[in-house]
């Protein structure tokens, strides 16, 4: 399975990407929503996208809207991974088409649990 990790923080991309790699994912990174969108438009369609909200150039919510506007990308599972924890923001993201929402800070187990709920844990990790 292939995951696209979208975050303007290199540290967060390493952390999220590392957890996903441990679960058997191949990882591609993007530093903002536009860079991620460019990858999709170039033909790369991941199984999962983990998306920060607050990023320069294009924020995570705009990316979710752009992905959901294109039927070719309807199979991409979208999970927000963000510091935005207000109820209203969570509702906005889910209404826009995000499947799951993980609030920073999180533990590796919390990310794994979210993926498990989505049926997206490719390998059993003890």
């Amino acid at each position, binding site marked *: 399975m292939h995951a696209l990790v979208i975050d303007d923080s290199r540290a967060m991309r390493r952390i999220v990407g*590392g957890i996903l790699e441990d679960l058997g994912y191949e990882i591609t990174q993007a530093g903002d929503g536009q860079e991620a969108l460019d990858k999709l438009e170039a033909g790369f369609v991941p199984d999962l996208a983990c998306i920060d909200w607050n990023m*320069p150039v294009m924020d995570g919510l705009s990316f979710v809207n752009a992905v959901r506007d294109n039927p070719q990308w309807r199979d991409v599972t979208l999970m927000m991974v963000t*510091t*935005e924890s*207000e109820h*209203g923001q969570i509702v906005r993201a889910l209404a826009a088409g995000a499947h799951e929402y993980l609030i*920073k*800070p999180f533990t590796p187990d919390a990310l794994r649990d979210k993926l498990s709920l989505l049926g997206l844990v490719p390998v059993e990790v003890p």
Partner: protein
Amino acid sequence: MSELLSPEVDGATAAELLPEETVRAIADEIWASFIGEDEVLVPLDGDLPSETVSAWVGIDGPWRGRVVLTCSTSAAEELTRALLRGRAPAVLDAEDVEDGFGELANVLGGGLKALLPEASSLTLPMVGATPPSNGTDEHVVTSLWRGERIDIVICSVPLPH
């Protein structure tokens, strides 16, 4: 301007909106999740070295404020290494530390923003030797982590004239 403020934040200081125990609770959660299960911020004072680094985010809403994380440059490097756990490169460069330390401030600011009475937005994190000097009613929450002093400063930021 005052008619635009909500009753909850009108005239409230940073310490009233985000009291020390609230700041400590959020910071403790971040340390436990991101730095390590056994990593604790001890609520004690200590010496802040002359050479420090700060990371900060702004909060913009009915209350305008700033959340600043300050510590020694060596503590910022250690925090970044702990944040990345086994995924840290052998040698952290300045960009790694700026990025990791900034992300900690970002998560801290996001956690505190969520506790404000009305919806607000968060600026992207900034890192530097000193934060902007336009803050008012600063309140400082001081802790020790691995023997190093870590300051969390919350302040109000007036609208520019």
